C-alpha cells in the first residue's frame, strides 16, 4: 500500500498515512482534495467499489471525520480516505455522481449526524427517522438514555444498570475512565 501512497502523494497534497493491515490503509486529506483523489483512485487505480461512507464525531475537536472506504478487487485491498470537516455548520461536497449509492449514505449522514451535502438527491426526505425533533441522534452530545427516559414510560420493577457508567464506577477500574 506504501507504493500507492507514494504515487498519490506525488500528485496530491496528502496527510498522514496509516497502514492498518497489508490490505487496508487509511489516508488523511483535505476536503478540497477529496473529489479529485476519489476520481483518480476510481479511474486510474482500480478502486471502483465504494464500500462505505460514514462519519465519526470528534466532539472534543469540534470536527466530524468522514471516512470514504474504497475497495480494489484486483489487488484485494481497501483504502480509507479520512476527511475532517467542521462540526458546525457541517457541510461537504456530494459524490452521488461518482457512485449512485453514495446518495443513500449521504441521506443517512444528513439525518443521523446533520451533515449537509448540497445537491444530493432526496437529501431532505425522511430516511430512517420520522418526525424527529431533537438534535441528530448519532451526534455524541445527544443523550439517548435521557431521551428514552423522558419519552417512553418505564415499567416499574425493572432494574437496569447503565452500561455506560456502571463499570466505570466500580472500584477496580484501572484507569478511572
Amino acid at each position, binding site marked *: 500500500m506504501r507504493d500507492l501512497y507514494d504515487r498519490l502523494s506525488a500528485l496530491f497534497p496528502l496527510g498522514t498515512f496509516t497502514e492498518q493491515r497489508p490490505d487496508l490503509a487509511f489516508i488523511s486529506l483535505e476536503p478540497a482534495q477529496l473529489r479529485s483523489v476519489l476520481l483518480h483512485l476510481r479511474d486510474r487505480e482500480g478502486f471502483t*467499489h*465504494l464500500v462505505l461512507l460514514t462519519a465519526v464525531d470528534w466532539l472534543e475537536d469540534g470536527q466530524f471525520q468522514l471516512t470514504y472506504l474504497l475497495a480494489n478487487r484486483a489487488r484485494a485491498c481497501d483504502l*480509507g480516505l479520512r476527511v475532517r470537516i467542521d462540526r458546525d455548520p457541517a457541510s461537504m461536497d456530494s459524490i452521488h455522481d461518482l457512485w449512485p*449509492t453514495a446518495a443513500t449514505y449521504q441521506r443517512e449522514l444528513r439525518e443521523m449526524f446533520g451533515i449537509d451535502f448540497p445537491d444530493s*438527491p432526496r437529501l431532505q426526505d425522511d430516511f430512517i427517522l420520522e418526525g424527529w425533533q431533537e438534535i441528530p*441522534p448519532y451526534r455524541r452530545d445527544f443523550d*439517548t438514555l435521557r431521551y428514552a427516559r423522558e419519552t417512553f414510560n418505564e415499567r416499574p420493577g425493572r432494574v437496569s444498570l447503565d*452500561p455506560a457508567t456502571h463499570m466505570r464506577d466500580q472500584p477496580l477500574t484501572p484507569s478511572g*475512565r
Partner: protein
Amino acid sequence: MALLTPDRSQYPALKPDGTLDIDLSSGKYLKLWQGPQHPGITGNMSVELTVCGDEVVEGKTHVGYLHRGFEKLMERRTFIQCFPIVCRICVPEPDFNEYCFAAAIEELAGLEVPERAHWIRTLILEMGRINSYLMYLGGQAGSLGLGVIGQWATYARDVMLDRFEELTGGRIYHMFILPGGVRDGLPEGFASRMEATLRELETVMADIYDTMFCNAVFKRRTVGNGVIDRAWIDPYGVTGPNARAAGVAKDLRKDKPYLVYPQLDFEPIIGTDSDMYTRADVRRRDVLLSIDLIRQLFAKMPTQGAVMAEIPNVLHWTIPPGETYICGECSRGEYGYYLVTDGSGYPRRVNVRGPSYTHAMALLERMIVNANIADVAALMVSLHTYPPEIER
C-alpha cells in the same frame, strides 16, 4: 430486454433536477404502497410505487421501521457488553455480526486467536449461510406462488437450527463468537449428527431443485426478468450472489481470504445471465457448496487445542486508539464492520456495512422501473435483502 434500456417515451418527462415529473392528479398514475404490512415484502420495509397501468414508473424504498440505533447504543456499552446486541442487527444470519465485530476488536487490541477457534468460527458462519439461503429460497418461491417450497425450506432450516442449538445453546441468536475465540469446542459426536443433517439437507435441496427450478411457471416468470446489468455492479455497490450471478466472481472468501478459507478447496459459484432465475440458482448451488465446505471443515479441523485466547479482564478492557474495517462474505454479499476506538473502554464509533444497504435502496429503485407490479415482490426477494441491516 426492457429493464436495461427503460423506454421512457410514454412516461413522465424528467424535471431539471433529475426527478420524474409525475402529476398525480392527471389520473394517469396511481400511487401504491407495498408494505410494511404486506405479504409481498421482504420483512418490515416498504416501497412506494408509482404505477401507470400495471407498469411501475417510479419506486422509492422506505426503510427505518426497524431502527433501534445500534451504532449509538454500542457507544454506551463496553466492548464485551456489545456482544449480546450485535447479533440482533441481522436476524436471519446473526453470526456474521459477531465474527466481524470480534475480529475488529482482536485486530485493534492485538489479540492472537487460537487456530482451532478459526475452524469453529468458519463452521458456524457456513451453517448460518445455509440457514439464510434456505430462508431466501422459501421466500423466492413463495413470492411466485410456490408455497410448498417455503414449508420444505423452513423444515430444513429447523433441522439446521437443531445443530446450532446443540452447539451454542440458542436457536436464533448464538453469541458463540467472542473476542479471542469461541465459547466452547464441539460437543461429543457432533460431526456425525451434522453429517446426518447434511444428508437430510441434500435430499431437501434435490426436491427443491425438482419442484422449483424445473417448474415451468417459475421459469417463465424468472428467466430473463429482473436483470442486473454488469455495468451497474460497481456504481451501485453490488456484491455477493447478486454480482456473482452476473458473472463477476466477487466472493470475499476467495478474494480476501479470512479465517481458514485459504485451506479449503472451493471455487466461487458464478452464473451468466444475471436474471432472477440465475440468482436463485447461484444461491441454490451456494448451499451445496456450503454443505461441501462443512464436510471439508470436519475432515481437516483440529480436534484438540484451545478455543479461547487469554484476554484481559473484559469488564475493564480498554483498547488503544485505532480504526479498522473487517469484512466477510455473508449470504447476501459483503458484510463489514468499521470500528473506531479512542483508547477508552467503549467503541468510539461502529458502522455496519450491510449488503442490503445498497441492494435494497439504490439498486432496487433502479431495477424496479418498468417492472410489472406482479413481479415487484419477486424482484425484491431476488435481491435477498434483510431490512434490519439497512437501518440497524
